[in-house]
């Protein structure tokens, strides 16, 4: 994707012929072979590639599942069980898809936290960040609707609770909910439209991913120092350097993925979803999938009315706001320094934020009663304060550590500390790539 200058030189006649008509090989060459990446990327930077492969995995397993699945309330549950029992390797497909969704979220959360740690959202990467948040939103919508498809108790009641959020909005609330449900309650029309959208949205995600990668290839990647690339010695060609490092990261990720699929396939799910949906029996505790729990905790933390806003609307606003605030992050952070590596105080607040997010997740799995509510309120407060107070204020008052002049300088300083490598080695990669 266009970074301006292309170094692709078609060598064979066929390549020349194609290049003159549709420069697809050139695009691939420039994006995944010659594309310069900062030489100091660590493994936190491998999650982008992992996310891409997880999207492919979800689409492949999903398309095959859809060949056997029936979106009708009378048979949906049994059609999934038929996949589990009678379709060849159906259990594998289904467990890959269900656990794949979880692993997709593991990767996206690590990817987002990487961005928050290294200040990846700062100029000139605001649009890149915003496209990422849009992907995340689409992922949440996709996963929510996918979870409804097996038509178990949690599918049904989760759908009921989540679509019910919209009724909190005055005037437009009820029509929105009815549009989502295709009626007044979760029923066959709901299942049908959710299946249709669940099939559609992943391809929209793929589309936004293309824009995301395009934007990335215009601005280039950040790196742990947060200093922009200044000279050729700061970068390495994507292949083989980033390719092989990403590949190693992916294989490690697959080991974790496989562990869940083959040994703990139901660990991340809820046992109630093995009970067919029953509109007359409400489960004792309705809990969403683990990746929604922090937001669920924030929703239920608002137990009080504020002026004309009752607690229900307040909770919904706080929940939606917790994601909306991500869109503003590029402008909320006032720091001149990009990376947390050189920001001693930001680093502390960042890790507190991460701990707080996990804590919110745990609270989301608890019933909303007693001291849990107070803890959730406190944790919600910190969640918002991190973005709305700490980010803007800290950037103005914090004294950052001294920044190195370039990536190369930082890298050489580090390897000198480690000993061994001669400085001349920096020139080597150009000849290798």
């Amino acid at each position, binding site marked *: 994707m266009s970074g301006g200058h292309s170094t692709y030189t078609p060598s064979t006649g066929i390549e020349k012929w194609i290049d003159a008509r549709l420069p697809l090989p050139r695009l691939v060459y420039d994006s995944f072979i010659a594309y310069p990446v900062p030489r100091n990327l660590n493994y936190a930077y491998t999650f982008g590639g992992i996310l891409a492969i997880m999207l492919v995995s979800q689409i492949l397993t999903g398309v095959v599942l859809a060949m056997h699945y029936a979106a009708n309330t009378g048979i949906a549950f049994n059609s999934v069980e038929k996949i589990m029992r009678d379709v060849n390797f159906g259990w594998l497909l289904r467990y890959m898809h269900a656990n794949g969704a979880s692993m997709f979220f593991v990767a996206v959360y690590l990817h987002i936290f990487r961005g928050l740690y290294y200040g990846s959202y700062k100029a000139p990467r605001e649009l890149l960040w915003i496209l990422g948040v849009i992907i995340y939103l689409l992922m949440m919508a996709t996963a929510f609707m996918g979870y409804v498809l097996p038509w178990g108790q949690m599918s049904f009641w989760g759908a009921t609770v989540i679509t019910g959020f919209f009724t909190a909005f005055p005037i437009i609330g009820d029509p929105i909910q009815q549009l989502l449900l295709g009626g007044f309650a979760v029923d066959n029309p709901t299942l049908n439209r959710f299946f249709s959208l669940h099939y559609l949205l992943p391809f929209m995600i793929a589309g936004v991913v293309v824009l995301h990668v395009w934007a990335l290839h215009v601005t280039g990647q950040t790196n742990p120092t947060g200093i922009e690339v200044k000279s050729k010695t700061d970068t390495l060609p994507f292949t083989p350097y980033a390719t092989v490092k990403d590949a190693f990261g992916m294989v490690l990720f697959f080991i974790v993925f496989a562990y869940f699929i*083959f040994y703990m396939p139901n660990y991340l799910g809820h046992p109630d979803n093995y009970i067919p949906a029953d509109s007359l029996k409400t489960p004792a505790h309705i809990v969403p999938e683990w990746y929604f729990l922090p937001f669920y905790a924030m929703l239920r933390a608002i137990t009080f009315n504020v002026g004309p806003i009752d607690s229900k609307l307040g909770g919904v606003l706080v929940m939606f706001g917790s994601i909306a605030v991500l869109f503003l992050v590029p402008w909320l952070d006032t720091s001149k320094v990009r990376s947390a590596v050189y920001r001693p105080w930001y680093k502390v607040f960042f890790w507190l934020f991460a*701990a707080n997010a996990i804590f919110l997740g*745990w609270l989301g799995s608890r019933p909303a009663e007693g001291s849990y509510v107070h803890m959730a309120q406190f944790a919600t407060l910190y969640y918002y304060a991190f973005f709305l107070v700490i980010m803007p204020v800290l950037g103005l008052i914090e004294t950052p550590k001294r920044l190195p002049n370039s990536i190369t300088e930082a890298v050489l300083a580090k*390897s000198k500390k480690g000993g061994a490598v001669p400085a001349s080695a920096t020139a*080597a990669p150009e000849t290798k790539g």
Partner: protein
Amino acid sequence: MKTILTGFATLSFGVMLAVGLVGGALAQEEHSEAEPAHFPIIKPHQEDWSFAGPFGTYDKGQLQRGLKVFKEVCSSCHSMNLVAFRSFEELGYSEDQVKALAAEYEVQDGPNADGEMFTRKAIPTDYFPPPFPNDEAAAASNGGAVPPDFSLIAKARAVERGFPTFIFDLFTQYAEAGPDYIHALLTGYDHTPPEGMQVPAGTYYNPYFIAGKSLAMPKPISDDQVTYDDGAPQTVDQYSRDVSAFLMWAAEPHLEARKRTGFRVMIFLILFAGLVYAVKRRVWENVPH
């Protein structure tokens, strides 16, 4: 990288501490013996299962005994709608034995050429016939409660493990909460309710029941009720073990294939990771980064 690691260590430690403290504090909160608020009153004991762990396999003898208990006791109230007779071959029965087993049951079929429904002997491709024609009939015969279908019961029940056990479970591969629960429930009828507890009429006190202090199922099985011909002890404990294992099989018939495949996949991935790492080392050699 190092900062990330130390950060992560502090982070996990912090979270553990916070959650631990909070969890401890909450455990102290009110609970009265006569009117408990959280169920089950007693958590199930963790049993040994042949199908647990990365190399777990079903014990076919045990599954056959479990099927016998199910057929002779539970199936008069509980259905098992998703399990076909043909799949009993996986319990070690021959094709003919399965045919004979199916033929013990009648199923409705039709309509025939005259438009009439008729009953016939079941064949291996039929599904296990339910004891009641519909939920209403099932509830009417069981004091208003429908005995749940057994096809997935072993995956549809799991007593919450609590913090930090649920984290350890990830590493010990604990995935037998269902059979542990069923075993505990079936062997849990002999407790007497604490003083002052009101047990609603038509229900039976069982401190292991996940959704209340008592349930509509009376103690379903007692010692020597089912005859075993392989010398296994004819006790409630053994019956419960066997039927729980059988129900795990019914819920997860491909468990053995899953774990076997998993082992190969893991070996492959680990070797592959080693190779990719070696290549990565080679490529990045002499390149400070």
